[in-house]
């Protein structure tokens, strides 16, 4: 099997998302060197890999934030060229970025509805702060993460609390495809448990599909249906979680490790 083909599926059944041969270059740096992946409806895919392997870059391409140098993408079986974050959102793709994409000086509820603010109907289409505040309180209470008040500026929150806000924002947007870039990195054990519970509940409710980037191999194998390994801009391994193990993953990582310098 060629390197580029590792991420590709047996072409059967419906797919929520598929990316083929994605290449992304930043000047001399090749962040992604022909990456392919697919995501079945209702599936949870874990992506593991070295720092700088290109995981976040792939996520940003899938959200329409960056455009690939080359490669194609399909959403729900239809080929698309994402034009913007709003475009991806309209197709049901939501993301928790690694940097969380929060505005420190704005309140939690404004952050939770940033760029999809509910507006009052008449006559000036002003911000509906009341509805934003109410829905933000509901969402955060539903998750169960301890946050003092949705009026608080995000600048006042701890790292884990900020992650909870970013996750709540993505999860309560009725997304069908959720992309989570290290969502649990700053979370305590109790809080990551709450988030994983939440994801579980959402998966049971409907056809939510997820991609989660993480660095915790054991946890990823436990919660994801399938895992992929990213190294130096390529997919070096893929398996169903049930058919692989932490030692095997570590072995692959060690075998394929190479130092990549910008040419």
């Amino acid at each position, binding site marked *: 099997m060629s390197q580029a083909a590792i991420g590709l599926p047996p072409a059967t059944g419906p797919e929520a998302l598929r990316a083929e041969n994605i290449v992304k270059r930043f000047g001399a740096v090749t962040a992604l060197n022909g990456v392919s992946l697919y995501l079945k409806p209702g599936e949870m895919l874990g992506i593991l890999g070295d720092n700088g392997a290109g995981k976040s870059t792939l996520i940003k391409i899938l959200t329409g934030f960056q455009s690939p140098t080359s490669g194609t993408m399909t959403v729900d079986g239809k080929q698309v060229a994402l034009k913007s974050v709003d475009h991806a959102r309209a197709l049901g793709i939501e993301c928790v970025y690694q940097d969380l*994409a929060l505005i420190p000086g704005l309140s939690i509820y404004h952050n939770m509805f940033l760029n999809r603010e509910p507006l009052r109907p008449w006559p000036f289409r002003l911000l509906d702060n009341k509805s934003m505040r109410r829905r933000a309180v509901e969402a955060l209470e539903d998750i169960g993460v301890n946050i003092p008040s949705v009026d608080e500026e995000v600048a*006042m929150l701890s790292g884990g609390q900020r992650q909870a806000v970013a996750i709540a924002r993505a999860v309560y947007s009725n997304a069908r495809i959720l992309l989570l870039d290290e969502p649990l990195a700053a979370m305590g054990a109790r809080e990551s448990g709450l988030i994983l519970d939440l994801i579980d509940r959402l998966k049971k409710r409907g056809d939510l599909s997820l991609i989660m980037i993480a660095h915790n191999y054991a946890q990823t194998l436990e919660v994801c249906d399938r895992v992929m390994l990213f190294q130096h801009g390529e997919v070096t391994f893929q398996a169903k979680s049930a058919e692989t193990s932490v030692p095997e993953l570590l072995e692959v990582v060690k075998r394929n490790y190479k130092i990549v310098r910008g040419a």
Partner: protein
Amino acid sequence: MSAHQQPLSAGPGIAARTLHGFLRFREASIVVVAILLIIYFEISNSNFITNANLQTLSQFISAPVIIACGEIMLLICGEIDLSVGMVFAIAPFIMYFCATSLGLPIIIAMLIALAVAGCIGLINGFITVKLRVPSFVTTLGTLFLINGLTLTISKGFPVDTPGSPAFAKIMGAAGYAEIIWAVIIVAIMHVVLRNTRWGLHTIAVGGNVLAAAESGINVPKIKIGNFVLTSVLGAFAGIVEAYRIGSTDPLAGGTNMMFLAVAASVIGGTSLMGGSGTIIGGLVGGLVLGVLQDGFTIDGINAYTFDMIIGGAILIAMVFNIHVARLRRAGRKL
């Protein structure tokens, strides 16, 4: 940040309450300073609160406050416009030439002047956002460019403002017309900043430009839009000022007008680092500058002293702002 503090299931934390209180106090403290200054000048000189002097005062503060409404939006989204004082000067000339040489109706002439100003804002924004020249440098360039243009087309001579006396009255010639325009614009821009998507996105862009872009906010649109807004408001202020005086001077406005507007913004609590600011603060900042200028003039203090006092006021305001920014950063580490 939120102006509305309604009871919630969970109350704000102590740190947030202190910060909110402090922030609110900071805005209130400028109001207090303004009131104290007015009391001081009224006591030291009984001519201060008279109809004639209030009119003078209102005329002094109107133009800088109108311009500050745009400048504050720009400062919040992390940019600055140094050229706006020159747009202030050129706009009434454009209007004059459209009305006299081209014989256009006065309203059309005014709309053309505002549209040209909008194009200048568009150019400022395009060079800054798309060609990635810092706005300080971009608008420094257009500052000289527009000034040269004004002096060329006017040949350096003032002209009378065109149009009927009634039109002139509405546009600024009537006693309090200018300040009424200023207050209307302040009220609109306050709502725009606090209660519209545009205002929220402006704060977001200045607070964390990458996060704003990742959230799908069209950062170039917000920035360029605020450059256009600032230029148009600068042009409008120039037109209103010209009608108040009854003539259009090619040397009107300029850097002094621009610096007054920036000073009003900064004294009013808008951060030069972007991400926060208030329109009402800009109005009060303009009032403080006006009261200082007017009061010291009545008291017979000369212009040199006045400049020193303005300088001091700006420095104190900046120390305040940076202190608040440090508190915020400290809050982030909680």
